[in-house]
């Protein structure tokens, strides 16, 4: 109990240090930028206009996107993901893997242990690959920001292509692993009937 408490304060301290580090780096970058712009005054207007425009775009969407991420991380538990994804296969399995991967519930390193749990519970390798890939690059908040900065056409085209290629990759990796037949991903899976 006590140990866990100290561990927690340790983690908090580390987090605070990281945040401070971020602001220090920002300050350094800002100073460099100001010096550069003082040396090249003709670039000042272009730089400040761009900075202001990008700042506005961020201000309008970033808070909303971050609130969505907070909501999903509180309301969707890992247990629920494991329960619903389980051993599903076929198109349904692929769609569920994409759906649960796309929910904004944390960074990629959170997904690895979750993927292992799913594998142990008998999930298909293809679905795990798809799940991890969706987790990495089809997150709902990411898509929203992509929509804002790169437009609807770019966002939908990349989304559809990514889903197609990721599904193919999942199936390919599964075949390859079954073919070499070592099945040494963490824990050997249950033999499929």
């Amino acid at each position, binding site marked *: 109990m006590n140990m866990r408490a100290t561990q927690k304060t340790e983690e908090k301290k580390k987090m605070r240090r990281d945040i401070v580090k971020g602001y220090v780096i920002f300050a350094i970058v800002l100073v460099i930028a100001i010096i550069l712009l003082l040396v090249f005054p003709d670039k000042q207007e272009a730089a400040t206009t761009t900075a202001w425009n990008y700042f506005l775009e961020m201000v309008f969407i970033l808070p909303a996107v971050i609130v969505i991420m*907070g909501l999903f991380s509180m309301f969707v538990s890992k247990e629920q993901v494991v329960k619903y994804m389980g051993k599903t296969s076929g198109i349904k399995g692929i769609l569920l893997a994409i759906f649960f991967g796309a929910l904004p519930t944390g960074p990629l390193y959170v997904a690895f242990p979750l993927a292992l749990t799913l594998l142990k519970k008998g999930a298909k390798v293809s679905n795990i690959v798809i799940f991890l890939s969706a987790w990495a690059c089809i997150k709902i908040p990411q898509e929203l920001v992509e929509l804002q900065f790169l437009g609807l056409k770019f966002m939908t085209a990349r989304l559809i292509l990514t889903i197609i290629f990721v599904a193919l990759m999942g199936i390919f990796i599964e075949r390859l*692993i079954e073919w070499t037949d070592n099945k040494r991903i963490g824990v050997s899976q249950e033999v499929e009937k």
Partner: protein
Amino acid sequence: MSTTVIVINLFTLGCFSFALVKNRTKAKQSLMVAIKSFVRILPTVLIIIVVISLLLAFAPPDQISRFIGDQSGFGGLLAIAVLGAVLYIPALLSFPLAASLLQSGAGVASVTAFITTLTMVGLATLPLEIKVLGKKFAFLRNGLSFIIAIAIALTMEAIL
């Protein structure tokens, strides 16, 4: 304000109201989580904004275009895909960066490859992935992700 901004904010408002109705304490907690992550991501956001404005002000479009634009060919595409795999920028912030690169003369293929490898291939997270899911799985997933990133990029260039 663009329609995108309005849609995103309405969507968030809808989700949050729904959460409030479903579970008041959890909704409030998620707001706290959001504030914390906002404080954490803010410096990176500001850094990216400064970098983008310097990039657009100083890097001449014809130079950018020569390295990662239409004239750069496959070598440029590969180089930026590798860069995306090695760098560790939060995905959320890769999009404004990508937009500024496009604006200053980069090609659709390069920008797509950059975003895709940045999110899907993680050299920074590879050791952990190996530890948890095994060497074979991790190398296959990251290696193939790199290849499909190039494939997605080339297809994007062809259709957009």
